[in-house]
């Protein structure tokens, strides 16, 4: 493919959200541009069709990365991994966000890459999306015709297919407070510790009273066409006693609901194997004997 010339591209620089939404509604071929860490790569490799970018960086309403409302955290669409790593309140209340942020690319990617960009880029190997799903994040979408919210775990429909109309902008990511006393887990498996694309990722939390599992979240990356909330596995675990029988049933449920593939980064067999071991590690770390 010949490299695209910059002549095929132009940029809108709105200052206010309503301006941005009108442009998205009225103009053809408009592509929102946040930190550009995905888009600039596709542009430079000649893999982007001609478009007009909607530069979100100047929008006044998006400048504060975090706000708190009724105990919920609201992340702006410009909130970066760096913003998350340096915010003490966020780190205390949502530790998994920081665990994931540290492992997205490297510092120079984290300073520009945004969580909203990670959501809309919709890679099955995304590292930001899984922890947001664990915390029951809701995606706020806005267009000139109104605002709606969608649970992130229902946002994806297929590979790079999502519940977003072309005139809708992600205007916020909303996280309710997670339950107290939960036990959290996060592990990204990749060829290197940093600057590496995920082969398998598992993250979640588990809430136990004595040896019974009250509630849990289990989310996996790179084992399905999109980030997968493992609902079957969760339902096996919820209400059960955390013992070897339950773990065995959970493993079987997990194998039933993941659908990994062979690709340049790994094989389906490896991914199945590792996904199961990560689940084991998580459940064992959460079992009464470990605490």
């Amino acid at each position, binding site marked *: 493919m010949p490299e695209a010339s910059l002549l095929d591209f132009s*940029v809108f620089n709105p200052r206010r959200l309503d301006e941005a939404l009108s442009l998205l509604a009225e103009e053809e071929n408009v592509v929102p541009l946040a930190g*550009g860490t995905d888009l*600039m790569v596709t542009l*430079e490799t000649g893999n982007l069709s001609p478009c007009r970018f909607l530069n979100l960086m100047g929008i006044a309403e998006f400048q504060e990365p975090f706000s708190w409302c009724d105990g919920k955290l609201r992340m702006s669409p410009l909130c970066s991994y760096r913003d998350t790593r340096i915010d003490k309140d966020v780190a205390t209340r949502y530790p998994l966000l920081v665990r994931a942020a540290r492992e997205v690319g490297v*510092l120079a*990617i984290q*300073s*520009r890459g945004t969580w909203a960009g990670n959501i809309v880029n919709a890679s099955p190997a995304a590292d930001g999306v899984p922890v947001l799903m664990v915390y029951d994040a809701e995606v706020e979408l806005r267009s000139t015709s109104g605002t709606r919210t969608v649970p992130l775990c229902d946002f994806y429909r297929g590979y790079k297919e999502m519940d977003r109309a072309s005139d809708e902008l992600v205007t916020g990511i909303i996280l309710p407070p997670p339950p107290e006393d939960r036990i959290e887990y996060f592990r990204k498996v990749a060829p290197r510790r940093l600057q590496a694309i995920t082969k398998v990722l598992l993250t979640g939390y588990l809430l136990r009273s004595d040896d019974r599992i009250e509630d849990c979240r289990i989310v996996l990356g790179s084992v399905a066409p999109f980030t997968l909330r493992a609902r079957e596995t969760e339902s096996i675990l919820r209400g059960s006693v955390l013992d070897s029988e339950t773990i065995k049933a959970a493993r079987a449920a997990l194998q039933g609901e993941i659908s990994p593939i062979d690709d340049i980064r790994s094989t389906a067999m490896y991914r199945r194997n590792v996904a199961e071991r990560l689940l084991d590690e998580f459940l064992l770390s959460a079992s009464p004997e470990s605490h």
Partner: protein
Amino acid sequence: MTEPLDRMTLTLTVNGRTIKVAVHPMARLLDILREEIGLTGTKEGCGEGECGACTVLMNGVPVLACLTPACQVDGAEVVTVEGLAKETLHPIQQAFLEEGGAQCGICTPGMLISAFYYLEHPECAENLREALAGNQCRCTGYTKIFSSVRKAAERLGKTIPEV
């Protein structure tokens, strides 16, 4: 109706000097620095965010100049490798020279910027390895780069974790 831009005039401060340039809004900061301003210290390795050769500080934070479009640098303060030395080499540069931290030199500008940022903000990363993880070097095997930065840290009176 608003027309999309295919040309814009930016004002940016590079190594303390304020400069105006007229460029395409999707031009890369890397090309602005090298082609428009003539600061060729910042290198292009991969052009895809993987190698870190193009690392510069923008508003005090490390970014990859190959992934940063012009429309997002208007009004920004940029520091490139040319901005590190004042009257004499910066202690990090001096240490690279003494310890053999540079061989072919392609990774060096980005390495120096990342090392500079880390020594100014040691809390930004768990250790030196994490701080330099985005900067690839095909020559040195990293050992001499790490010892250069440690030597500079000592001279600057900065404490950084062992591993």
